[in-house]
């Protein structure tokens, strides 16, 4: 430095021109001459840990500053900051309200000292203001006002002027100079100044107008409305009112209410408000007026105000509060009925979902509370008026309405839904009741009594089906009930009522013929353990019946046995001996049916076993008997003849008097017949015939059986006995049967002529002819004819020829008659033979004539003449014989060759050899004919 100083000193002596030369300056790493040339130094910036300071500590610091500092500015600042930190922290730091005046008294000295000093780094207007404040705080209003007037006068442009004006006006107001205060406030409002202060001023302007009496109240009201506009310009501002403004706003509302109440109430208020768009704070004014009325014992007026608001602003957000207020007002006025009506209004107003959604959480809670109260009220009062049915019903219905709308809006509404259901039930609205119960049961999570509610719904569904579960139910109702019980069962699987209900359903579905469902329910009951015995019983019963009906007899049997076990265990109350008997009967039937089924399926032994085991279950029962019977029948059908025969005989022995026994005979006959024991069968028939009024059908069957067995003796005996009864053929069959008998007798008798003649006679006299009877009769006639022809031939034409001839002629006639009858019966089939035999009769006669003995008494001539006469006599016969044979021969053309034609040809060959005795190679001709040429 000394060097520089020396240089400077040296430079003083240099001529000015040299001074200007920068090159002579020696910097020596130091900064230049002026602040601009100042060389910056390195300043370190680094974060340091900050102490945790409490507002109280800060308060202490300011307090100490105020107490220790003599510097008015510092002191004033400390005071201001103290109050600030107290306000911001909400803690009680710094000076108490009691201390403050004293503190400001002290402060005044500071202010005065600043003023006296005349030099103040701050602004004097501020000082004046602070002094005024201090004076005011220490109670020197006049001095305070004086300072303020000074300020306003001296520093009209000071930013403090507005507040000073305000204070001045305040002072005027305090002094009761309201008109002046009004002017002062208005000046302030019209002039410069912050909005906060102006709003305060407006507020006070309102008061100064108010204080001037009712005549100025319209003015005051307008001002107060302005105040509210200022504080609460928007909806949003309602929610963010500064704590400091709360009292002002509150007071403004209060005074508006007071003015309105002292004038024409809400009408005055609305007059002041005018018809414009409602401003955000309007509800507050109404509210306040309503409150005022309420507090001053005019509940009706209060209610009117509240209602008026809602009426005037039907879509207003605050309507819920107003409606609620009506409730509160009536309640506080001790008018529970009116309060209740108001609650009903409230509830009704927000019944629509849209409206309700508009409510905030508290309002919704309130709505729910009211709805609940109303619901309970209507429920209870309806309960107490059960006697007056109409009233009770409508009461319950209303209660239900409330409960329902409440329940819809509550998360855990199980109990409410149930109440709603109950109310509906009481109101006779079963459908709605069911819905409510169901909602409580299934749509109300965590509702502890859900099962009971579900059961209530089921109970109602049950009302729709007949009380007797075995009677058929309307299908729809039953389906509904089933669905309900299904739901119950799946939702409350452990509920003990489920089984009984399902058992009941099983019974009902069975009654309705829906076996599938019946079975399903029965299964549902029987599958899990734990269901009651009675339910089990019912279920098994249904199961058994269904199985039975479905011909699932094995399952049916199992079910019946379960049922029976339950009865036998004595665990099913109310069952009687009859029940057991019925069950046993059904069980037997099931087994029987199994027998039948097995029989149908050809499982004989199984069927028999089924049929027979019935007896062990129900010895002596009809079913057992039938079983025995059917066992035998089954064996019969299975052609197990001997076993069947044994069974049948056993049955007849065991149950000789049973109806079924009467049929045993036939069955035995059948069995014997089938097992190739026709004699036994015949015997059985004969035995049977003995018991019959008309034994002949049996005897004839026996005869047939004897016939089959070859026991012709017994047969013929029976035929003979029968024919002795001279039966008449009543129809073709009986005719055939009789002719057959005759034929058989013919065949087996040693002298069949009797039977042949009878047969021919019967045939001739019958109206019915069958081919067979005609053939048989033809044969009989032929046999008879041959016998007569033999007789004819055997009659020698001896002398007396005439006699002999008579005899012969009779015989010839008899034979010819039989042959004609034979041809009549046998027709074409026997025509060749008949023609032949008739021809032979004539040829015999001719021959016999020719060979007849000439009477001995004749001479040769005579004898010759005689001979000649005989020949002449015999010739027509011969001619007749040839004609018949030729006729027979002639039939070849139409009927072809047969032996009898052959025979006729042979005879013709003998009788007319020239014409007929020719070697004709028929066969070769035939063969030629067969060549197909």
């Amino acid at each position, binding site marked *: 430095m000394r060097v520089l100083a020396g240089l400077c000193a040296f430079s003083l002596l240099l001529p000015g021109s040299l001074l200007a030369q920068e090159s002579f300056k020696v910097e020596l790493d130091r900064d230049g001459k*002026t602040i601009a040339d100042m060389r910056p130094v390195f300043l370190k910036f680094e974060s340091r840990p900050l102490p945790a300071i409490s507002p109280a500590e800060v308060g202490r610091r300011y307090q100490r500053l105020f107490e220790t500092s003599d510097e008015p500015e510092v002191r004033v600042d400390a005071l201001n900051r103290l109050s600030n930190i107290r306000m911001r922290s909400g803690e009680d730091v710094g000076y108490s309200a009691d201390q403050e005046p004293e503190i400001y008294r002290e402060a005044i000295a500071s202010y005065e000292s600043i003023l006296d000093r005349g030099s103040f780094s701050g602004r004097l207007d501020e000082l004046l203001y602070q002094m005024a404040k201090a004076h005011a705080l220490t109670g020197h209003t006049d001095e305070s006002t004086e300072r303020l007037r000074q300020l306003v006068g001296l520093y009209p442009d000071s930013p403090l002027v507005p507040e000073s004006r305000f204070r001045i006006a305040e002072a005027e107001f305090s002094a009761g100079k309201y008109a002046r205060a009004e002017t002062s406030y208005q000046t302030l409002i019209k002039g410069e100044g912050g909005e906060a202060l102006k709003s305060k001023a407006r507020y006070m302007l309102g008061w100064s107008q108010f204080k001037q009496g009712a005549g100025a109240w319209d003015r005051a009201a307008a001002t107060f409305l302005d105040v509210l506009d200022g504080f609460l310009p928007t909806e949003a501002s309602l929610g963010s009112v500064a704590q400091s403004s709360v009292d002002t706003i509150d007071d403004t509302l209060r005074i508006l209410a007071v003015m309105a109440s002292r004038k024409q109430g809400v009408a005055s208020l609305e007059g002041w408000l005018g018809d414009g768009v409602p401003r955000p704070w309007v509800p507050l004014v109404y509210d306040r007026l309503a409150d005022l009325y309420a507090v001053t014992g005019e509940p009706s007026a209060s209610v009117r105000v509240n209602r008026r608001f809602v009426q005037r602003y039907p879509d207003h957000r605050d309507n819920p509060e107003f409606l609620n207020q009506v409730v509160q007002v009536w309640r506080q006025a001790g008018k529970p009925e009116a309060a209740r009506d108001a609650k009903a209004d409230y509830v009704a107003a927000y019944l629509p979902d849209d409206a309700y959604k508009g409510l905030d959480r508290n309002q919704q809670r309130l709505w729910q509370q009211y709805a609940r109260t109303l619901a309970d009220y209507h429920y209870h009062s309806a309960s107490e008026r059960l006697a007056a049915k109409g009233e009770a019903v409508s009461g319950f219905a209303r209660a239900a309405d409330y409960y329902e709308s409440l329940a819809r809006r509550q998360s855990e509404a199980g109990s409410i839904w149930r109440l709603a259901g109950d109310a509906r039930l009481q109101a006779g609205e079963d459908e709605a009741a069911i819905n409510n119960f169901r909602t409580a049961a299934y749509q109300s999570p965590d509702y502890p009594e859900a099962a009971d509610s579900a059961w209530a719904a089921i109970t109602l569904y049950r009302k729709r089906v007949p009380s007797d579960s075995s009677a058929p139910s309307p299908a729809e109702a039953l389906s509904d009930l089933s669905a309900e019980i299904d739901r119950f069962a799946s939702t409350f699987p452990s509920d003990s009522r489920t089984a009984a209900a399902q058992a009941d359903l099983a019974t009902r579905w069975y009654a309705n013929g829906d076996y599938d469902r019946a079975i399903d329910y029965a299964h549902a009951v029987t599958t899990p353990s734990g269901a009651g015995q009675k339910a089990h019983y019912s279920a098994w019963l249904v199961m058994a019946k269904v199985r039975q009906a479905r011909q699932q007899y094995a399952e049916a049997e199992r079910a019946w046995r379960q049922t029976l076990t339950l009865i036998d265990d004595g665990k099913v109350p109310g069952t009687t001996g009859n029940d057991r008997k019925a069950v046993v009967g059904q069980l037997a039937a099931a087994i029987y049916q199994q027998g039948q089924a097995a029989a149908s399926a050809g499982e004989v032994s199984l069927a028999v076993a089924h049929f027979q085991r019935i007896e062990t279950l129900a010895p002596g029962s009809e079913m057992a008997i039938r079983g025995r019977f059917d066992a035998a029948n089954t064996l019969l059908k299975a052609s197990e003849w001997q076993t069947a025969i044994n069974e049948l005989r056993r049955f007849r022995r065991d149950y000789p008097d049973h109806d079924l026994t009467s049929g045993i005979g036939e069955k035995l006959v059948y069995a014997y017949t089938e097992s190739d024991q026709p004699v036994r069968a015949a015997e059985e028939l004969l035995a049977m015939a003995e018991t019959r009024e008309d034994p002949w059908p049996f005897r004839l069957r026996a005869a047939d059986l004897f016939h089959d067995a070859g026991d012709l003796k017994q047969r013929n005996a029976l035929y003979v006995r029968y024919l002795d009864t001279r039966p008449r053929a009543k129809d073709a069959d009986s005719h055939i049967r009789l002719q057959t008998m005759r034929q058989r007798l013919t065949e087996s008798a040693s002298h069949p002529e009797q039977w042949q003649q009878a047969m021919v006679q019967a045939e001739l006299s019958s109206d019915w002819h069958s081919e067979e009877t005609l053939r048989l009769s033809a044969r009989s006639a032929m046999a008879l004819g041959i016998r007569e022809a033999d007789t004819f031939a055997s009659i020698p034409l001896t002398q007396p020829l005439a006699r002999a001839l008579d005899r012969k002629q009779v015989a010839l006639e008899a034979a010819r008659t039989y042959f004609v009858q034979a041809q009549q019966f046998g027709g074409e089939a026997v025509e060749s033979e008949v023609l032949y035999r008739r021809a032979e009769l004539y040829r015999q006669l001719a021959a016999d004539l020719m060979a007849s003995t000439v009477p001995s008494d004749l001479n040769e001539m005579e004898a010759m003449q005689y001979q000649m006469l005989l020949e002449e006599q015999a010739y027509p016969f011969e001619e007749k014989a040839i004609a018949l044979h030729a006729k027979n021969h002639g039939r070849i053309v139409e009927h072809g060759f047969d032996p009898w034609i052959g025979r006729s040809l042979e005879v013709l060959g003998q009788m007319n050899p020239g014409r007929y005795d020719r070697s004709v190679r028929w066969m070769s001709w035939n063969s030629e004919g067969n060549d197909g040429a």
Partner: protein
Amino acid sequence: MFVGRSLRISLTAFLAACGCMAGPVLAGGIAVPEDLRPGVVRYALATGDAPDAVRMIGAMNGEEAPLLRARAWLDSGHRQQGLEELRRIADSDTYRAKASMLLGRASLEQADSQQAARWFGLAARYGFGEDKQEALYHLADFQRQAGAPEKAGKILSGMEAGYWAAVGYGNLASDYAQQDTNPARALVALRVALAMTEADQESDRQEDLRNRLLARAGYLAYQNGEYDKAIGFLEKVALDSPVTPLALYFHGLALAERGNHRAAMQSWHRAKKFPLAYAGVADAWIGMGRGYDLAGYLGQAGEAYLAANAAYESERVTLRKLKQQIREKGAYGALVKGAQTSDLEWFLADSRTMQQPRQAYLMDFLDTPSAQIAVARVARLERLDHRLSQEQSNLEVLLSELDHREKGGSADQGELRQLRAEGNALGDQVERLLEKATGAEQKRRLAEMDRILGDADSALTAVSHAGSASGGVGARLKALLSEIAGYRERVSALRATAESRLDELALAYVDDQDQRMVYAYDKTEQQIAHLYEYLALENLQETSQ
């Protein structure tokens, strides 16, 4: 800081005028050549050695003689005689302006502004150069003080560019600043004042005034929110002036307002280097904390505030010590002498001088007229006493020499040698001053002084050769000695009064300074409290979130 306080003449110049250093004492009885007498008187007057001047005024002739005589009367306490002499001169044709000037100043001292205005009016009318400007300045200032800034402005506009016009405009600017809310007028006046200073030939004075004007302009611009303008003004302020710390402080403020906190802190950091006695330094200490605070380093901010408080506390200790010293040694001894005893010489005053707290307080203390007067009074009395004691010892030496001679002894050659050595030392001092002298006038005076020293040396040589005096001389010497003793008693009594007056002022000043520290302390505490309040509220907010 500037409010209500007018600018005063340069402190350095004042110190020089006071002759705070031990001035060379002219041996009495040395015959001064006729032509040199006015010069010797002027020197005596300039060096505050009025008695010497008075001794010579009787034997002085020439046109300037009445004026010098009047000045000598005035300076030596013969006020009435001096004033009468001046009035006579003022009525005459020669030196009437100078006389009017002096009369004006005298009236001003008596607070007779009316008379002062009259005399300054005359001085302005008849005077020229610096005197005329000063007179015009005073006239303008009277108008200004009378609440007629326009008239003052009119007078100022008629002045020549230079120191006085600058001061005038500066004061006018102060008035405008006080009256106007908008500093436009004041700034215009200050710009004019700045332009006027350029013409001042006295560089120290010019520099000093320029710095003050710039600082004031910067402050006004800053207050008006014209930060760039403020920065422009303040950056022109020299780094080593008494207003530098204040300028730096405002500079920092303006930068901070521009958002340049770090640069602001540079300025405050620099300002902090100055002793707290200077305006703006204490504020700069607070500013550092504020700077850290604004830069977001709250921890450092707190530390800076605490550091500031520590500085204030230690300054208060210094002030207490100073106060104790004032009580013990008196303000003059503690402050003025104390400043002298530091190894610095007033003419080497530089920025380092300013870094000495005590020097700083002295300079600041002497920035007030009353202090200047009080110190000057004590200094004069001290000088008088010193003079008397020197006379006394001279006489005693002479008497003992005479006794010695009477007893047959010879002159004490050793003592004479010592005196001559002192004379030579003084001669060296004068030569050194000559090297530093600026104006031609100063050089001339110093040269004359050099010559007088030479005379003194001759006189001493003469004494050493002088023979013993006659017996009558001894008696006369003794009478003189007792007379001197009487004077010294009076001087001592007067000095006691003056010093106690100075002590009062100094103590009041120190108390003021202490109060200022207390205020700064309070301010810092306030800042700490604000910081803590912020932290507490932050905490509250955090815990509430």
